[in-house]
């Protein structure tokens, strides 16, 4: 179980300013074991920041994060990873010289037979065995690298998996495959929790619980059946959550520094 208690996250308005801007505003949230939770809401609402705070990529200004009762507020990324928190990046890193198979093995924490790797890859719509020996570098398209990122999460199989916009960069054809995969993960969850940040209705439909985030606060949260109808009222935005422009589905350009 993940418990966020009174989480505040502030950043300086600009580099040398002492003024701060509040990105997450006194947010409390509990994610129960075995739940599939979708966090949605308008751009700039703090969704990705919240995910980073859970993984330890960002540190909260104040508040407490408990994972299975253990205080991980100041734990490093590595410590949280070893406790069973996993994170699927919105814009995955690329690694020159690293083969796809190696990345999957690093994720799994052990050597993997090729067949097993192919199984992970086929679940994300990469059906050619040739991918295993490809390098996770610029030679892969944005969509391929994104799918490989999701495959690393399948190989890692964390107790709590956080996906930051898994659909971003995935083409429409593969999107069907991806939603099936998330459905499969959820069905085989065995008490594992999934948190997905998404704007996609078809992913939201898979959720047990939906959390709507706006301006760093929870605007609405609850079981899917209760929240879904409100999401449909996009045009009458003063009630419920506004779903803004959906994430673009064509391949995104992902900057690489190396």
């Amino acid at each position: 179980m993940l418990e966020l208690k009174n989480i505040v996250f502030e950043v300086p308005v600009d580099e040398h300013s002492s003024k701060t801007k509040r990105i997450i505003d006194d947010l409390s949230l509990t994610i129960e074991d075995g739940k599939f939770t979708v966090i949605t809401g308008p751009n700039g609402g703090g969704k990705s920041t919240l995910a980073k705070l859970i993984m330890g990529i960002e540190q909260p200004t104040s508040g407490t994060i408990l994972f299975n009762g253990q205080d991980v507020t100041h734990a490093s990324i590595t410590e949280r990873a070893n406790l069973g928190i996993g994170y699927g990046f919105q814009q995955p890193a690329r690694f020159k010289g690293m083969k796809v198979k190696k990345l999957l093995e690093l994720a799994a924490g052990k050597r993997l037979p090729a067949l097993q790797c192919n199984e992970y890859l086929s679940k994300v719509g990469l059906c050619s065995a040739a991918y295993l020996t490809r390098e996770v570098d610029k030679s892969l398209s944005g969509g391929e690298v994104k799918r490989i990122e999701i495959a690393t999460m399948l190989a890692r199989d964390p107790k709590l998996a956080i996906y930051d916009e898994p659909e971003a960069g995935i083409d429409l054809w593969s999107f069907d495959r991806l939603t099936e995969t998330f459905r499969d993960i959820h069905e085989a969850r065995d008490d594992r929790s999934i948190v997905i940040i998404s704007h996609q209705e078809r992913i939201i439909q898979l959720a047990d619980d939906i959390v709507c985030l706006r301006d760093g606060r929870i605007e609405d949260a609850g079981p899917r059946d209760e929240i879904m109808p409100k999401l449909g009222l996009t045009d009458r935005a003063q009630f419920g959550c506004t779903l803004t422009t959906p994430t673009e589905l064509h391949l995104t350009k992902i900057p690489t520094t190396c």
Partner: protein
Amino acid sequence: MAELNKIDEELLAQIADLHGMPRGAFNIRKDGQLVERSSSANIDIEAFTDKQGIKITVAPGTKGETVHIPVIMTKTGITDVVYNDFHIGEGADVTIVAGCGIHNSGDDATEHDGIHSFWLGKGSRVRYVEKHYGEGEGTGDRILNPTTNVYMGEDSFCEMEMTQLKGVSSTVRETNCELAEGAKLILTEKLLTHGKQTAVSNMDIRLKGEGSNVQVISRSVAQDDSYQVFNPLVVGEAACHGHVQCDAIIMGNAKVKAIPGIEAASEDAQLIHEAAIGKIAGDQIIKLMTLGMSEEEAEQEILNDFLS
């Protein structure tokens, strides 16, 4: 003939992945002297009489054979200059494993300058693997200044992987290649420098024949206070393709200078160069940390893969 001790064997394992004497044709050289040499039915190795070094002749049509020619240096204060000439017969397909390991436990410089020249016959194929490595508790420099000349005949193919593992105080590398019609060269150079080491790599690659093709891939990691200069020039003199790609990771106070040059002397020459120098990207380290690695482990993994 010289004998091999434990240090020698470890050096040979590092640079040529050798454990004991190789099979087939080989020539093992230690401190400027022959340890052991063997020719095979198709590959003849003979010593020059007028200078240090060997002439390796691969018979036309030889397929799937490997030649090992490692050099090890374990004495301090010596310089070994050696010429290795390779004549590859038409249609042959061979692998050549070279490399030099220096163990310098003294305070004087130990230097090896290998001048390797290759003449590739029509339609022949060569895979050349060379590793350089230095170690030793002494303060003496470990210097490797290799010169590599490659003359590629019509429709020949050559893949060169030249790696400097670590421990080499200074290196000046000269690589000169000429490609005839239809020849294809893939040249990969990987250099790691650390401490106060310096590395300079000069290349001059001339695409003389129509349809010739070169791909130069440079990967380098410069750590601590080390300094590297990568200076390749590809000249297209015919309808040809040339691609130079330089990637460097810089760490600490290291400096890297990349001067990729391309020169077209034919309107049908297609030449491209790319160069990028930067530190390890933060998102790479974070990704590996989310897989349970520490920051140091993540950094090492990224470097290992980059230079693999």
